[in-house]
């Protein structure tokens, strides 16, 4: 195929740029273990009340010196609310929905995952700064979707 010199240069430059984008992502994955949430665990959404964990959502101590937060999203609330976690420690969210698909976004942080009925979303975040954060549902879930908010309180631990 006859390709003009300038276009050839451009095509190689474009390939390099794409390789640089991908290389960055692969390096972050390989060296910093940065991966999207990908936990695979199922739970019966029609009977969460009987579930030992999701029947009583809340904050518990975690194995890694942090905490585990069990969250149930249900039209149009999150429970528990507010959620209180320590600053500077790993916080593992375990999240599911009792009805339709919801979103769980801690505004201003990179905690952002889907709550899908029948599945448990699990991801770990560390909040370095104490303060109050807004948790918003970011997936349309019905006429009061915009009302579905909660509060995350990140507390500096007393030493």
């Amino acid at each position, binding site marked *: *195929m*006859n*390709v*003009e010199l*300038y*276009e050839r240069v451009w*095509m190689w430059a*474009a*390939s390099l*740029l*794409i390789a640089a*984008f*991908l290389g960055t*992502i692969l390096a*972050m*994955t390989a060296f910093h273990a*940065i*991966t*999207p*949430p*990908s936990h*695979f*665990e*199922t*739970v019966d*959404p*029609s009977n969460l009340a009987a579930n030992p964990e999701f029947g009583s959502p809340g904050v518990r101590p975690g194995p890694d010196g942090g905490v585990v937060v069990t969250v149930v999203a249900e*039209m149009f609330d999150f429970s528990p609310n507010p959620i209180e976690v320590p600053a500077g420690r790993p916080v593992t969210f375990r999240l599911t929905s009792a*009805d*339709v*698909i919801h979103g769980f*976004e801690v*505004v*201003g942080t*990179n*905690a*952002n*995952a*889907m709550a*899908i*009925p*029948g*599945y*448990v*979303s*699990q991801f770990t975040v560390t909040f370095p700064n104490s303060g109050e954060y*807004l948790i*918003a549902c*970011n*997936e*349309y*879930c*019905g*006429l*009061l*979707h*915009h*009302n*579905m*908010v909660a509060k995350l309180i990140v507390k500096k631990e007393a030493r």
Partner: protein
Amino acid sequence: MSSRNSLAAAHLGVGIAAFGLASAMGLIQALSLADIQFPQRSESLYYMSLTAHGVLMALVFTTFFIMGFGYALAQVTLGRVTGRRTAWFAFWLGLVGTALAAQTILRGQSTVLYTFYPPLMAHPLFYIGATLLVVASWIWGGVMIASYRSWRRENPAVPVPLPIHGMLATIIIWYLATTGLAAEVVGMLIPWSLKLVPTVDPLLARTYFWWFGHPLVYFWLLPAYVIWYTLLPRAAGGKLFSDPLARMVFILFVLLSTPVGFHHQFADPGISASWKLAHTVTTYAILYPSFVTAFTVIASLEVAGRLKGAKGLFNWIARLPWGDPFFAACALAMLAFTVGGFGGAINAAYAMNTMVHNTAWIQGHFHVTLGTTVTLTFMGVTYWLLPRVMGRELKFSALARLQPYLWFLGVAIFSASYHIAGLRGLPRRVYSAALSGEYGAEWHGLTRVAAVGAVVMFLSALSFLIVVIATWLAGRRTDTASFEFAVPLRPVTTLGVWDRFGVWTVVAVLLVAAAYAYPVLNLISHPRFGSKGFQPF
């Protein structure tokens, strides 16, 4: 209008009507989100209009417009549309399907948005109507392929005209994409909404949806590329810089558009990180054909400027016909795509995606891509098509000249605001930027600015509709406008590797199988709990 073109005209007309209705819905949404009061403002109106806007823009406007454009191209480049009766049957089937689905939306019975994620459950006619529209588009694809094969029998040794090459690629992508949609809608949602099965798995349905949902983007985009490659250089007074590279680009899209869907599901459970990474790689690979397109199309325009006497490095740009609404619309659409393309590269990087996932950034993003790159190109080509398909001169040509610039201005205001608001955390698809009533200091002002952008976009859409309707009904009759396509700098006369559609289709099917077989099998082999339907609207 000659009867040869009535098929194309009917499809374009339905597409543009859907666009008009959807534009009004869009204005309602932007005002509501910004907490600007207007009569009848309510949650149910907002979420209903969000559903109608998405379905009418993403599925009805685009599908009908692309079908009509395809027929017009087949008629003029192949000299035929083989199976006209079948094509008219498909038109009515698609129209009836659209009407069935649309009436359930407008009555508030299907407020499930255009993504219709279960367990939100719409009226059964919503799913059935949408299916009829897709079946109609499948028949359209069959008619287009039959026309091509009939032409091929008479012309066994020459490459197919480039516009049809691009449309065939579009059709193959569409068949690959809608296989996922059929699995979801016919295999799961229709029986579920008819209460034949009690539950469906929401994650499996989402996975099938995004198997369809991303190649859908290329189904919209490729006809715009056909326009940029084959019509625009001619309208600008230039030549196509490279014909074989254009064919390579279309084939690369056939290969890469479908095995990418997990980049819409980064935040989902149930799909492993390595499969999300695999789809990330293909997502970045698909930037490549767009980079090549940027060079080829802009080089073709430079040829145009230089043929008109430009000598310097950049003054060829000034020689381009910026007062021609078709040219201006396409050029502004391309400018928008440089922003939209890099925005897409950001979305595809999952570490950055987590900052913008399901925030207002996303609606900012797709209004520069679908909402401008594709839509503005389609509006521009409408000005080009009306004299050729309808045989009528444009009415209100000054308004037509202004309209693309108005759209670009509006979308620049609109999308910049939502991009920034999204970075600050504004969730997408909310009735009010204040959420439950006390939030939003970080983004409230931005949603007001976005609403101004939406008003400008709406005025532009209105200008477009006025020009189209006036031309359609009362434009002066003309028979001088002819279809002329850009001539390549070096015409190609022999069949090449990029003309082998059969082989490339097989490779594309294998890639889709490689991308989805294992994750879907893994999902369905796991014991799962289904969901019954919910109708919180």
